């Protein structure tokens, strides 16, 4: 293994652990409080009917927890990294939309009173960049991995 590929592996490890911790923390901040609080934050975006808001509020924190644990353990990394990037891209798009419309609403990211601002956009934009980088790295590493048994056959 070259030093470059060692570095890329280390970067991948750091990214997936960091994103995993962030997702588990985000899930915990929602699951430790009544679901209605997160529902009101989701409803603040004024995008979904109430029934769907309730569904999102009751299920999304569990999905975040699941994704976070998968990232931390490294199972199905390419799929999980791609799903994380898609999820964060969706969150980021919704936040940018709300900010552009001048809506003073909580972002619903990490518990109460996290009002959307340039700071929250910068934070979530950085997370999205990290998830995209992790996705690219996980696919590249898969492509570069030697085929099973290649040493035996050499």
């Amino acid at each position, binding site marked *: 293994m070259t030093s470059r590929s060692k570095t890329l592996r280390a970067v991948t490890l750091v990214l997936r652990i960091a994103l995993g911790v962030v997702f588990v923390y985000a899930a915990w901040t929602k699951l430790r409080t009544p679901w209605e*609080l997160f*529902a*009101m934050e989701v409803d*603040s975006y*004024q995008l979904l009917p109430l029934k769907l808001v309730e569904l999102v509020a009751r299920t999304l924190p569990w999905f975040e927890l699941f994704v976070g644990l998968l990232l931390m353990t490294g199972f199905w990394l390419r799929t999980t990294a791609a799903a994380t990037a898609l999820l964060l891209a969706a969150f980021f798009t919704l936040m940018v939309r709300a900010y552009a419309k001048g809506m003073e609403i909580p972002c619903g990211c990490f518990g*109460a009173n996290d*009002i959307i601002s340039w700071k929250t956009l910068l934070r979530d934009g950085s997370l999205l960049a990290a998830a995209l980088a992790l996705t690219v790295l996980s696919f590249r590493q898969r492509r570069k991995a030697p085929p099973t048994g290649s040493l035996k056959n050499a």
Partner: protein
Amino acid sequence: MGLLFLWPAMAAMNDIDPDKTAGNPAAPVTIEVFSDFQCPACKGFHERTLPQLEREFVATGKVFLVYREFPLAVHAHSREAANYAVAAARLSLYRPVADALFRDQIAWSANGKVWDTVASVLTLSQQKKVKAGADDASVLGEIMRDVNAGNGVRITSTPTLVVSRGTTRYPISGTLNYEFLKSLIDDLSK
């Protein structure tokens, strides 16, 4: 020992002005409403959500309501409006003055004539007392305590509700959907 655990909530509630409350203080759920008289979302909350809340939960003894001032620096006349409202609370006239301030919000926000709106719901003798009381140190101190209480729960926008049951407090801001608020209160009341 139990007092030690209750202390943060008790300290937060010690500064309540009894003239700015509604309902039974022994109700299972307390809701503190941090509001700014010049904020359009607060007008919406005051005129649409608050009456429902008062009818369904305050009148039935499930919720104890506490009104708190949180004048935002971005609003030029918020502080003046809060001063008059708290001074009116000394005469047990907080609610009529608050109702009038929200009713005429668009007008006085534009022309700055806050006092005209306040005076419109007071008698001449009440006007004198409220005018004098608006600069009183105790009134200004009470508003400062409300702002500090809001800062204590990291409020950055209005209206924000702090819903509490015992020592557990949940700050809520945003669109404050009544259906979810109702469900939350019902869950906490059990």
